[in-house]
């Protein structure tokens, strides 16, 4: 009797256990490729193949190749490299030239946003920095700008000139005009105004004395577009600093040259 009860219990436990065992017919595909299907762009490889690199650069090794006809998801982009996932959930970096050889489900090629710096509707903002000689000292400048047309840009600039006897801060606003924005190396003209705050160093004159002045400037320069979003700049400026507190003191004239860079976003 005991033996029979024991066998029945064992049979019951085994059958309950079998109920919880996953069967092959119940299991569903659990690929990220399927789960995140609508979230990312899915394309078909129409070129010979896609090479998966381990990092976003040509120097990183190729670890996998996706052949023509297979589908891949494009996850995100960093510079000219795309993080891509294949049907077996492998992920790698593919360069732009190869991503261009893919097709969407409707047969169209992938719309890759790669605007030019002259397309001011897409990339109206620019930011950059420059450094150079202002009068007899070194000057740092950082600026942000907004282009209303390929030729006309409004700039807001902050300058700092730390010298032995004083620190000069300037906040400037100006307009930059580029007559030929389509040239790769192109000249520009600029004019603007702003305020300067000169603080004497405590080490030389005791307590720091602060002098505020208004500034006007004009200048010219060259922009060299390295690619669609980035450029180097070389420029020359003439400043006129007034003495608002003393009408009889002549204005101070300063010349500046500086080199820098800017990128568009």
């Amino acid at each position: 009797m005991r033996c029979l009860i024991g066998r029945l219990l064992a049979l019951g436990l085994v059958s309950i256990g079998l109920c919880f065992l996953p069967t092959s017919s119940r299991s569903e595909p659990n690929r990220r490729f399927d789960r995140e299907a609508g979230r990312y762009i899915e394309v078909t490889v129409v070129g010979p193949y896609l090479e998966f690199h381990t990092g976003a650069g040509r120097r990183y090794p190729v670890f996998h190749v996706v052949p023509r006809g297979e589908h891949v998801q494009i996850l995100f982009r960093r510079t000219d490299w795309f993080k891509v996932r294949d049907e077996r959930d492998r992920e790698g970096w593919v360069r732009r030239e190869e991503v261009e050889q893919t097709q969407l489900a409707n047969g169209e090629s992938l719309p890759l946003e790669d605007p030019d710096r002259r397309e001011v509707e897409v990339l109206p903002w620019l930011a950059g920095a420059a450094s150079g000689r202002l009068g007899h000292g070194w000057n740092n400048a950082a600026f942000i700008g907004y282009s209303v047309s390929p030729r006309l840009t409004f700039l807001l600039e902050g300058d700092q000139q730390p010298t032995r006897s004083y620190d000069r801060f300037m906040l400037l606003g100006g307009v930059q005009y580029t007559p030929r924005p389509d040239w790769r190396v192109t000249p520009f003209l600029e004019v603007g105004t702003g305020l300067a705050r000169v603080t004497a160093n405590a080490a030389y004159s005791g307590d720091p004395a602060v002098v505020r002045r208004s500034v006007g400037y004009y200048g010219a320069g060259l922009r060299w577009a390295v690619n669609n979003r980035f450029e180097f700049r070389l420029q020359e400026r003439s400043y006129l600093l007034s003495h608002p507190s003393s009408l009889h003191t002549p204005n101070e004239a300063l010349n500046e040259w500086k080199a820098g860079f800017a990128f568009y976003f």
Partner: protein
Amino acid sequence: MESRLRVLLLIVISAGLGGCAHLPHLWPFHRHAKTGQTGTGPTSATDTAPIVEPEIVRQQVKVPRIRNSNVEITASAGLLNVEQYGTYPTIDVRGTYHIKERFFAEGSVGISKLRAASYVNADGTPHPLTSNQRRVYDYAIDLGYDVLPGEAFFGRKKSFATAVYVVAGMGALHYGADSFYAPNIGLGYRVLLSDRFAAHIDVRDAVTQRTLTGAKHLTNNIESTIGLSVYF
């Protein structure tokens, strides 16, 4: 004779009709037949329409936008050596914009604090620095280049993309109620932990041309930091 005339007449008529067939603009009936106006051609537009109208509805494919991930924000901590004043803890925040595959621009700000220090004034009297004057602020705007992209292996299965990079740019140091123009150069190592996060080790040298006392002297202010960055 009569039969010859008949043959000649038939030749002329047949040649004339053949010629007219090749000149449709001289043959008004041909035009009517094309537009369906004559009795022999189709009489209305309904005759030309296909029996079954194909119902073609173009499916609008909405393509998700590809996210750009070119901006990197780094928070780092380490040590700053201010020449002649010692080495002190520092924290930095850095914003990087990746322009090209191996090329980036970045701006950074940092803060540190010197311990009790003093400088000698122009008249020779020692001048202790106040608490505010002992704060060191620095900023830099640099361009960087990945010189050695590679991989780092942790165990047999885990590997991370890495890069050794160099940076150069300009900036300024501010301490002791004085500011110093400070061009800088540096070397860094980046380990991409995931798509979003990276770890950095950086060494940078901000060079100034004078000291707090006013003496013309090239000082090297070396900053070593370890940081964690997030890509946006």
